[in-house]
């Protein structure tokens, strides 16, 4: 497999400061959004058409103590992206470093990608009538710069690099902490066919709001792989039957007998 790049999110090092969220907004020049206090420390509730990354907060009471789980959320930059497959405008492509990017000029805001993404990432922006998602800061990395969020991270929880190296690093990290966190695991190695964004999780993915085994929905598959390629031929078939009937009825002469000589000009 070609060498691809991404970053590693080591959730055990994340302190939930949200520096990455602000950096992303700043770099992408996205407006801040009014939010309401909902009794959680997670100030930004969800990704939106103007918010490409968030830190999701998950609070649990374990052994009488409050436990926090933080996980950065953004496009996972799948190795085999479903969003790319369904986009009717071919607006989504993979760069030579493996980032999954969306061409703003080609995008028509149909939101097909949003329905197909196994991680529920792309969001619609009503003002621009386009879909939005993280680009892995392609414009920055092409210049040798780090993605804005990675650069902003003060604890070293975000690390940019080659996927193979990050994967090795993540596995090593998991083996280091497995004593303290027996359920520690690497997320993104195999999920949805593998992603360029990798995570070290200290506990089961579900505790972080991740799906254990995210998949592209069956209906999306049926739509893309069965209905779209094969069903339109049924129209051609009805056309062919009509043409056949046009000739066979005239050839067999039933038109005259059974219909008392009526025809178009009758």
């Amino acid at each position: 497999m070609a060498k691809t790049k991404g970053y590693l999110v080591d959730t055990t090092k994340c302190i939930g400061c949200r520096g990455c969220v602000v950096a992303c907004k700043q770099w992408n020049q996205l407006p801040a959004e009014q939010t309401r206090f909902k009794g959680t420390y997670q100030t930004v509730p969800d990704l939106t058409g103007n918010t490409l990354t968030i830190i999701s907060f998950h609070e649990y009471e374990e052994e009488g103590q409050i436990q926090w789980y933080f996980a950065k959320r953004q496009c996972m930059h799948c190795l085999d992206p479903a969003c790319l497959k369904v986009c009717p405008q071919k607006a989504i492509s993979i760069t030579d470093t493996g980032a999954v990017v969306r061409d703003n000029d080609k995008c028509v805001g149909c939101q097909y990608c949003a329905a197909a993404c196994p991680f529920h990432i792309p969001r619609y922006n009503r003002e621009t009538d386009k879909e939005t998602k993280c680009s892995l800061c392609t414009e920055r990395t092409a210049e040798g710069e780090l993605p804005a969020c990675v650069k902003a991270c003060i604890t070293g929880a975000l690390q940019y690099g080659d996927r193979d190296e990050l994967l090795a690093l993540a596995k090593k990290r998991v083996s280091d902490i497995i004593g303290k966190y027996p359920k520690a695991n690497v997320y993104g190695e195999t999920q949805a066919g593998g992603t360029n964004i990798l995570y070290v999780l200290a506990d089961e993915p579900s505790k972080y709001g991740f799906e254990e085994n995210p998949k592209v929905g069956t209906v999306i598959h049926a739509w893309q792989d069965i209905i779209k390629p094969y069903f339109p031929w049924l129209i051609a078939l009805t056309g062919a039957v009509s043409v056949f009937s046009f000739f066979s009825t005239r050839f067999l002469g039933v038109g005259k007998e059974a219909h008392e000589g009526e025809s178009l000009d009758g």
Partner: protein
Amino acid sequence: MVEEKRVVKTTLGARLTHWSHTICWFTLLFTGLVMFSGWFEWLKPVFGGANGANFLHRLFAVIFGAVPLFGLLYKPESFFGWMKEAARWGSNEIKFMMMFPFDLIGLKVNMPPQDRVNAGQKFNSFFFPTVCFFIGVSGVIMWFAESFPLWLVSIAYPVHDLCWILGTMQLMFHAYLGSLHPGSGESFWAMFGDGTVRASWAKHHHTNWYNETYGEDE
């Protein structure tokens, strides 16, 4: 030639709806194909790019939905009358449907007497509105995708595609049977013209209806 007696088969309202639907269906079909498959790339410039096509698709979708809704509110009895007419199924209808494939390829069959609309047309009277209903509902969901749950949106896409394909299949048959199929000329010109057909034709093709409406005798 002596002018033959003519009888009214389709009303003005029915004819207007028919043609507004035809125009809408084809505009929706071609503007939609741009989003459906790369094979129709070449169509994009015709509609002013993908955005132009999407705009037209939505505009005609509104007309396509508004016309029958208006009709339903304005003259509900005409819609329910139609449905009642189409719901009249008996052995003649079933026989017609079973013999139809033979008639289609040109074998000689003796069709049982039919009402104003024959069994095939009755079938379509349910089939086509059902298809349109699902196209409309899935279309609204796709249009306002961000306001609906994702699972529903992902179902809307295949439903929309499946229904326009079924609808277009039906339309192809309908267009052929209503024009170039032997014996359809009369109905064809009725749809294009003033809605009347020759009495003898009506008696032959839609015997029951003719007898009920215009009496057994000439």
